């Protein structure tokens, strides 16, 4: 159910026109369509979710709490949180800077930068991981130098964090670019002519105008950072208690036939997903107000 919510709420305007169109369909067709959609949601979203929680609790609540409080699980949770804690703020800073540059200025290589930002989305996560192995691994470009100086990146938390940053790189910027483009430069220019410094203009005008979009980007970025499997799996080395993130920890438990423990850990990620979706739908309604306000205030535009 939760999974279905946001997709229904995305564009109220488009939805209105579509529903008025639907009203011309007969009742039977309407119910068949709704039935198919619900069945689809049930099989692909609700059933698996229910399955995760029932399996997680299949050996009772004690086994469940044990599974998520044993040292290796706690270490995995810690590493996952640490990764997100570093990757998300960095991508927020990068995302704001990049979208600011792209949306508000014209420069040579702008399209190239846009393509570059999208790169992690189009590359398979395994490749994303391999890039770092090729760069920092023992046989990699910087490998020998790193070994010489006793710096460990691959098969250690730094590589996990790097890979996560790479994979989540586009998420904030992608959210902000269209919003900033739609808003234009007028308000910033107005602030500057009124005597505001660049920093005050950013804090008092730009940031409040993009806050919902930014929050949305952060939520998506965080969900991906905590849930990333492919790229992290390549660079992690799967050392228990040291380089396992939550998704990797689940895989190991599962491969060792500790089903209920695996599902207990998985339930944490599932909970994260649910919280993310709820936050997302709340933020989306805020974003609507933001976009509508943009459309109204810059109304009869260009």
């Amino acid at each position, binding site marked *: 159910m939760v999974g279905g919510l946001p997709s229904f709420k995305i564009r109220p305007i488009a939805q209105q026109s579509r529903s008025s169109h639907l009203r011309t369909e007969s009742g039977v067709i309407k119910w068949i369509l709704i039935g198919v959609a619900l069945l689809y949601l049930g099989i692909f979203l609700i059933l698996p979710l229910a399955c995760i929680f029932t399996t997680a609790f299949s050996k009772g609540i004690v086994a469940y709490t044990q599974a998520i409080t044993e040292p290796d699980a706690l270490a995995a949770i810690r590493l996952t949180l640490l990764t997100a804690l570093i990757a998300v703020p960095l991508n927020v800073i990068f995302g704001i800077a990049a979208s600011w540059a792209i949306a508000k200025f014209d420069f040579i290589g702008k399209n190239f930068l846009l393509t570059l930002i999208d790169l992690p989305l189009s590359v398979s996560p395994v490749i994303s991981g391999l890039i770092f192995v090729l760069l920092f691994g023992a046989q990699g470009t910087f490998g020998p130098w790193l070994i010489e100086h006793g710096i460990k990146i691959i098969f250690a938390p730094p590589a996990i964090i790097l890979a996560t940053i790479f994979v989540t790189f586009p998420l904030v910027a992608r959210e902000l670019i269209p919003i900033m483009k739609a808003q234009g430069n*007028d*308000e910033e*220019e*107005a*602030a*500057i*002519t*009124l*005597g*505001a*410094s660049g920093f*005050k203009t950013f804090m*008092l*005008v730009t940031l*409040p*105008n993009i806050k919902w979009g930014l929050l949305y980007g952060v939520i998506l970025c965080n969900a991906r950072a905590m849930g990333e499997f492919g790229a992290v799996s390549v660079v992690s080395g799967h050392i228990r208690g040291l380089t396992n993130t939550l998704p990797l920890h689940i895989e190991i438990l599962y491969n060792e036939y500790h089903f209920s423990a695996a599902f207990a850990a998985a339930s944490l990620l599932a909970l994260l997903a649910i919280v993310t979706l709820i936050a997302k739908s709340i933020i989306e309604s805020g974003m609507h107000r933001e976009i*509508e*306000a*943009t459309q*109204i*205030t*810059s*109304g*009869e*535009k260009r």
Partner: protein
Amino acid sequence: MSIEVKNLTKIFGNFKAIDNINLKVETGELVALLGPSGSGKTTLLRIIAGLETADEGNILFSGEDARERKTKDRNVGFVFQHYALFRHMTVFDNIAFGLRVKPKKIRPSEDHIGRRVRELLKLVQLEWVEKRYPWQLSGGQRQRIALARALAVEPKVLLLDEPFGSLDAQVRKELRQWLRRFHDDLHITSLFVTHDQEEALEVADKIVVMNSGKIEQIGTPEEVYHKPASVFVLNFLGNVNLFHSRTEAATISSKAAKLYVRPHQLGVSRLPVDGNSVKVVLTFINPAGSSVKMDAKSSDGNVFQVEISQEEYKALKLIKNDEVFLTPKNITYSEYEI
């Protein structure tokens, strides 16, 4: 504060937006920059505000080089075509913005800011919208708030970029009369950009007519309308009819000439008045308005626009397809081929 523009040039890529412009706006004047889109008027305004930098030349504020001042320290009020109000702030916070971002040392107290904001709201006659957000206001109200916001920091110069450009005709008319009265009260040096000649003629003390990055003419509304300096100005400030003629004065050679005559400068009669009279057929008559507007066509296919008073129209009892004679009473502009 006076504004002086000296040898200003601005190039975008290979397009000369501003081409070596010189201009002086005296303290307290209300000047219109008039021209078609792409004539460089907005660019000029933005360079004066510091939102754009010139490639060559400079701007002097009361004789002082503006390049030495940052945009935020120029103390100009800028009003944007699309208002550019801060959408997440109330009207009160919008107007207070300029005062609140002042450095701590010279920032007025919240009390003082409140008083100033209410004073400005009263000035723009919108005291009751204090707590509203920009999107809850109409276009005309927003533009007045934008003006109040610009005035809050007591600018020495007010720059307005097509301030009424996105408003509908009725509000537009009201607001420009309001701006005129407003300027008469405050006497702040103001420069506004418009592509609407009627607006410029009605509001400004002085009009600067611009075309493709250059100034065509600077003058009072009367001067630019009645004594245009070029064919461009002539055409841009109202309709005009073109007569081809040959001067047959007591000169040695006769010269081909182009004579430009405004629609109201043509006399209409049933019979030819003199040798300059042209026989035409009235193809269209529009008697709605303070004067009667007509289109006429001569036998050689030239089309003329004519404007006569309601009294004349009634006296002549004109109807469509009547054959009449047009005689230029005055000539606004003439061009000789040498």
